[in-house]
């Protein structure tokens, strides 16, 4: 192991200084999500709003980061502009390895820079530079400028925001190394509120490995499993985009603001068609040989006489759902153009797609006018959606300003809450049934990856509330352990608790290996406690009417079963997150 405690870089943007802190707690909280919650307990302010300059923006990695394949993600934690509660978002790219080799287990940023700034931090680097000239610049062109301003190509990660983050949209993302994102819950707005346009993490150190062959031998075994077997094929081949056709077939793919769960015109946006017609190449997060990042292209004729330009656009399942089927888009170039626009603006693609789907139906029903939307919104019309995405990111008028704070915020003013597809945050693309809807509505990150609720729906016909909720609670526990390591959740089929134990032992974390069950419980508890302390009340969560109208391959959703699941899951979550009086 590198160390048995946590090494934390604490950056103060007010003073332009950094402290190196050491903290205990490895055996209770492991790292990643556990460490982030612990740091929020120390540096966060439950009683102050999300954009108070003193609120921390936290990035954390785990004990196995860099040591093993697919231990390649970073947890970002913050008080969310979406609901003003504690939240987490996860991303890969090069961020995790850059932090590992930058010699930090966590980076905590607090304060607010006087002018728009870029921060560079690493094992032997600390610099805060004025980049006010980048104000309003899109996320990709910002990256090009920052790349030339700081050293370390190939051994650094670059986090940056687009106009949406600067304008504090509640679902602004942080772009990580172009193709990955801290997407959900508005981490980009937190950077914007801190006047921070970009963060460069330089990973320049190396660390001696343990003596003996145990580590290298186990590494080889794990690597072979990941690359020589079919276990990761679905992520490497078609990628998650393969779900588009499969879920459409199952009548579980949300279309046109979830008015349908199936459409025969799905063909152009299926994973197969994307791979055959639009895929340029795959890419990977640093430290992961799987290569699940799928990069497609759009090309546009900008002048007569066959003058074209092209752009590379990352796609995967959630994107094809959010700005594809959810908006009634049935042309692959249109879907990619929308993804590209969302990327440039620095928005979360899922929230953006779902918010615009709601706005489209609201316009259809006469609740909002074209004067408010500035462009006519109609399912399938990509050019107008591209304009609308810019209006969202730039808060062009009162309507977009409200919508950029969340679909329900806009619905409170304009009506249409019944057909807002919001499950905690704008929904993920799994209309699989009652368990998923309850799980995402209440789950910690409102992500389909908090638990396998979507998978439970597909495997269980029977309606057993206790069994389903037991599954959600236990499944979350195993996933929080992985999210504390911080493993990519695509590897959950490989990293069993037994393998995690062996991996920890092989690099010297023997005590951690023996403490995993209690650690998982601790992490689950501290995350929920932190959330509850910042105002979360699971019992207050409601599932909009639209979800009661969904018809899947199993038939219509059963509202009573869903309500029973919601009530029981809420009770269990609040039990876990109960804060003792002491």
């Amino acid at each position, binding site marked *: 192991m*590198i160390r048995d405690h946590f090494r934390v870089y604490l950056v103060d943007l007010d003073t332009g200084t950094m402290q190196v802190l050491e903290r205990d707690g490895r055996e209770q909280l492991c790292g990643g999500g556990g460490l982030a919650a612990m740091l929020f307990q120390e540096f966060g302010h439950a009683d102050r709003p999300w954009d108070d300059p003193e609120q921390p923006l936290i990035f954390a990695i785990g004990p196995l980061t*860099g*040591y093993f*394949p697919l231990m390649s993600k970073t947890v970002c934690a913050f008080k969310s502009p979406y609901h003003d509660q504690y939240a987490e978002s996860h991303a890969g790219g090069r961020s995790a*390895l850059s932090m*590992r*080799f930058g010699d930090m287990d966590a980076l905590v940023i607090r304060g607010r820079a006087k002018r728009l700034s870029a921060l560079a931090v690493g094992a*032997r680097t600390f610099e805060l530079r004025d980049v006010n000239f980048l104000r309003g610049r899109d996320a990709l062109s910002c*990256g*090009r400028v920052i*790349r030339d301003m700081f050293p370390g*190509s*190939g*051994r650094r990660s670059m986090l940056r925001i687009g106009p949406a983050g600067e304008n504090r949209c509640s679902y602004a993302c942080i772009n990580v*190394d*172009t*193709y990955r994102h801290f997407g959900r819950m508005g981490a980009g707005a937190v950077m914007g509120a801190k006047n921070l346009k970009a963060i460069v993490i330089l*990973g*320049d*150190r*190396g*660390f*001696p*490995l343990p003596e003996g062959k145990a580590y*290298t031998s186990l*590494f080889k075994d794990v*690597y072979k499993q990941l*690359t020589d077997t079919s276990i990761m094929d679905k992520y490497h081949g078609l990628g998650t985009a393969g779900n588009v056709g499969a879920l459409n077939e199952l009548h579980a793919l949300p279309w046109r603001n979830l008015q349908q769960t199936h459409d025969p015109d799905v063909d152009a946006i299926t994973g197969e068609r994307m791979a055959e017609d639009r895929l340029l*190449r*795959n*890419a*990977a*997060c*640093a*430290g*992961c*040989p*799987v*290569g699940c*990042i799928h*990069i497609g292209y759009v090309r546009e004729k900008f002048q007569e006489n066959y003058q074209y330009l092209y752009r*590379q656009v990352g796609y995967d399942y959630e994107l094809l759902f959010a700005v594809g089927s959810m908006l009634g888009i049935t042309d692959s170039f249109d879907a990619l153009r929308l993804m590209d626009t969302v990327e440039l603006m620095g928005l979360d693609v899922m929230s953006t797609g779902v918010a615009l789907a709601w706005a489209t139906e609201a316009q259809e029903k006469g609740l909002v006018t074209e004067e408010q939307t500035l462009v006519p919104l109609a399912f399938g019309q990509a050019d107008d959606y591209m304009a609308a995405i810019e209006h969202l990111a730039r808060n062009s008028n009162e309507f977009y300003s409200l919508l950029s704070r969340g679909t329900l915020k806009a619905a409170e003013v304009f009506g249409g809450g019944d057909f807002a597809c919001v499950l905690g945050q704008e929904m993920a693309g799994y209309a699989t049934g009652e368990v998923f809807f309850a799980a995402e509505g209440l789950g910690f990150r409102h992500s389909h990856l908090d638990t396998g609720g979507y998978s439970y729906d597909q495997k269980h016909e029977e309606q057993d509330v206790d069994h389903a909720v037991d599954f959600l609670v236990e499944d979350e526990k195993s996933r929080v352990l992985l999210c504390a390591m911080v493993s990519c959740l695509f590897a959950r089929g490989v990293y069993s608790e037994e393998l995690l134990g062996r991996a920890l032992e092989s690099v010297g974390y023997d005590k951690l290996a023996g403490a995993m069950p209690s650690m998982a419980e601790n992490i689950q508890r501290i995350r929920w406690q932190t959330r509850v302390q910042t105002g979360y009340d699971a019992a207050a969560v409601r599932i909009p009417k639209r979800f009661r109208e969904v018809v899947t391959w199993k038939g219509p959703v059963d509202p009573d079963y869903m309500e029973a699941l919601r009530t029981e899951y809420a009770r269990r979550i609040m039990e876990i997150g109960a804060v003792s009086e002491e």
Partner: protein
Amino acid sequence: MKKLTAARMERCIGCHSCSLACARLVHKQLSWNKAGIRIRSAGGLSTGFQARLCLACDPAPCAEVCPTGALTQRREGGVIQKRKLCIRCGKCAEACPVDAIFLDHEVNPYLCIHCGRCVEYCPHDCLEMVEIVSERSQPTQEEAS
């Protein structure tokens, strides 16, 4: 005698498994720098990836400037490294025409010794060990005729 070549870098996905393997297996380090092969992009990930590694020069400029014999010419190309003899002057990295030698903060040089241990860790088969076709071993035009 063989050398490592990054023959098919257009296939590279940027996973760094090669450099991590080199650091792990050759240098006993957890690192993506302290390795004989390093992966970088040239202008962001959209441009694809480049590999920085020893091209097996013959004669090798790094060996020629090494004052202590820590780097010596390998037969037909590349160098042999004897770390114990290194005084960390950094001249080898300066002399390398293709930036293939990484100096850490203590000026320890890391460079490819063409052992090929990284090859099996490339998931896309970008890397290959190939026989060196040395000018020295080639027949001269006169000999050939």
